[in-house]
C-alpha cells in the first residue's frame, strides 16, 4: 500500500496529464477535428484568395454558367437518347472556396471554407469547373471536409456517355480512377466521356466525371477502364456545393423509388380531379422536376391556370 502511494506521489501528475492529453485528443477525434479546422479557417482567412468583390462575382458567375452549360448539354443528350425520362437538377448551389488539402497522405480530401452556417450538409454533392469533385464527409460551422472522387474509398456509379454502358468507379489518387463495368463486353473506347449514372445512389445523374484514357477488356472479374478525371483538383480554388439527392427517409434512391414518392405526392399537389388520374400514371411524373415538386412552386402556377 505504501509503495503504491509512493509510486502515485512520484508518477501521479504525469499519469494524470497523460490521461488529460489522451482524453483531449479523443475529444478532437470525436468532433472530427472541428475545432482545428475552425481555427485553420480563421487563420487562413486573410490568405484565402479573395480578390476584389467584382472579380469574385465574375468568377462565380462564369463557373455557374459553365456549370449550366455542362448541365444543359447533358440534359439535351439524355433527352434525345432516353425519350420520356428526364431528370433536371436545378443549379442552386453554394459557392465555396477551397482552403485546405488532405491532412494525411492516404486520403484524398479537401477542406472548404463554408460550413453548416452556410447551409452545407453531410453528403452534399461538390462540383467544380470540369465536373464532379466529391461528396461532403463532415461539416463544422464554417468549414466542411470533402472526400474527393479520386480517393480509393470513393465509389461512384458512372456511365459511358456514348454507349450508356454502366459501371462503378473507384479513385486511384491524384487525377486517375478505375471504372469497372457491369457488362462483360462493354462498348468503350479511349476518349469516351464518362458521367455519373442514373442508378448512382449518391450522386445525381449526368454530372461529367472524366474521360476514358485506356481500356482493359480482358481484366477479370470485370473489364476495366482507366479514367482521367476532368476536374483539375490541384489548381481548383472554388467549388459549388449542391444538396444531395438522398432523401432523408429513403436510403435507396434509384429511379423507381423516386418515381413512387413523386406519384404519391402528385395527387396532393393537383387537387383537380381531371389531373389526378394522369398523375398516377408512372410515366407522367417523370418530366416533372423532382426539386420543383418538393419546393412547392408548381401549385400556385397550377391554380393560376384554371
Amino acid at each position, binding site marked *: 500500500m505504501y509503495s503504491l502511494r509512493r509510486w502515485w506521489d512520484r508518477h501521479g501528475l504525469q499519469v494524470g496529464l497523460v490521461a488529460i492529453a*489522451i482524453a483531449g*485528443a479523443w475529444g478532437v477525434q470525436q468532433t472530427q*477535428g472541428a475545432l*482545428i479546422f475552425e481555427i485553420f479557417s480563421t*487563420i487562413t482567412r486573410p490568405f484565402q484568395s479573395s480578390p476584389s468583390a467584382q472579380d469574385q462575382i465574375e468568377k462565380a458567375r462564369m463557373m455557374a454558367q459553365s456549370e449550366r452549360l455542362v448541365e444543359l448539354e447533358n440534359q439535351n443528350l439524355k433527352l434525345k437518347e432516353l425519350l420520356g425520362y428526364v431528370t433536371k437538377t436545378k443549379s442552386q448551389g453554394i459557392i465555396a472556396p477551397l482552403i485546405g488539402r488532405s491532412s494525411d497522405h492516404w486520403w484524398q480530401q479537401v477542406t472548404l471554407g463554408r460550413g453548416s452556417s452556410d447551409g452545407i450538409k453531410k453528403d452534399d454533392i461538390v462540383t467544380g469547373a470540369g465536373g464532379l469533385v466529391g461528396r461532403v464527409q463532415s461539416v463544422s460551422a464554417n468549414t466542411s471536409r470533402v472526400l474527393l472522387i479520386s480517393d480509393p474509398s470513393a465509389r461512384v456509379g458512372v456511365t459511358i456517355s456514348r454507349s450508356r454502358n454502366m459501371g462503378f468507379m473507384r479513385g486511384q*489518387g491524384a487525377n486517375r480512377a478505375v471504372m469497372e463495368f457491369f457488362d462483360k463486353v462493354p462498348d468503350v473506347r479511349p476518349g469516351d466521356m464518362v458521367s455519373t449514372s442514373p442508378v448512382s445512389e449518391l450522386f445525381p445523374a449526368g454530372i461529367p466525371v472524366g474521360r476514358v484514357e485506356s481500356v482493359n477488356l480482358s481484366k477479370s472479374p470485370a473489364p476495366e477502364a482507366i479514367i482521367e478525371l476532368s476536374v483539375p483538383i490541384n489548381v481548383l480554388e472554388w467549388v459549388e456545393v449542391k444538396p444531395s439527392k438522398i432523401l432523408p427517409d429513403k436510403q435507396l434512391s434509384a429511379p423507381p423509388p423516386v418515381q413512387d414518392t413523386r406519384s404519391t405526392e402528385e395527387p396532393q399537389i393537383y387537387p383537380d380531379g381531371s389531373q389526378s388520374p394522369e398523375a398516377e400514371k408512372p410515366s407522367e411524373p417523370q418530366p416533372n422536376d423532382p426539386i420543383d415538386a418538393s419546393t412547392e412552386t408548381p401549385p400556385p402556377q397550377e391554380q393560376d391556370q384554371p
Partner: protein
Amino acid sequence: MHPQTRRLLNTLVTLASLLLCLLILPSRLPGMTLLGIGPNWLLIWVVSWSVKRSQFLGAAAGIALGLIQDGMTSAVPSHAISLGIVGILTARLQKHRYIQEDFISVALIVFGMSLVAEGITAVQYSFLGQRSLTEIWDDQQLVGLSSAILSSLWAPVVYFPLNVWWGRMKLLESS
C-alpha cells in the same frame, strides 16, 4: 521565474507548437510538396518530443496526436497506432544511445519513422481489405518515400526550436 508560471509557460509553448503543426497539416505551401504530398508534421513533432523522453510519454504523445489526426481525416485506419509506435521506437532509440543526438540524426530518425508509420498504415489497409494489395503497396512506396524525404528535410524546423526550449526549461528545473 516562479516554477509554476514556468511550467505553465512550458505547457503553453508546447501546445502552441503542436497547434502550429496541426494547422500546417491541411495546407500545401508552395515548394513544400513532392507529388502533391507534404511533410508529415505530426510525425516530426512526435519524434522531437520522444527523442529525450520515456517510452510511456512517447507513446502517449503519439496516441494523442494520432487520435487528433484521425478526427481530421478518418478513424479507419487509425493514425494513433502508427504514431504511438513511432513514439515508442524513438524513445527506445535514445535509450540505447546508438545515435548521437543532433540535427542530422533527428532527420535520419524522422526518415526511418516516416517509412515505419506509412508501413503500419499500409498494413492496416491490407487487413481492412477494401483495396487490392498491389494498389496499397504501390501507394505505400510513393507516399512513404515522398513523405519520408520531405519530413526529414523539414524536421529541424520543428525540432531545433523545441529542443532548445525544452533543454532550457530542463536546465531551469534542475537548477
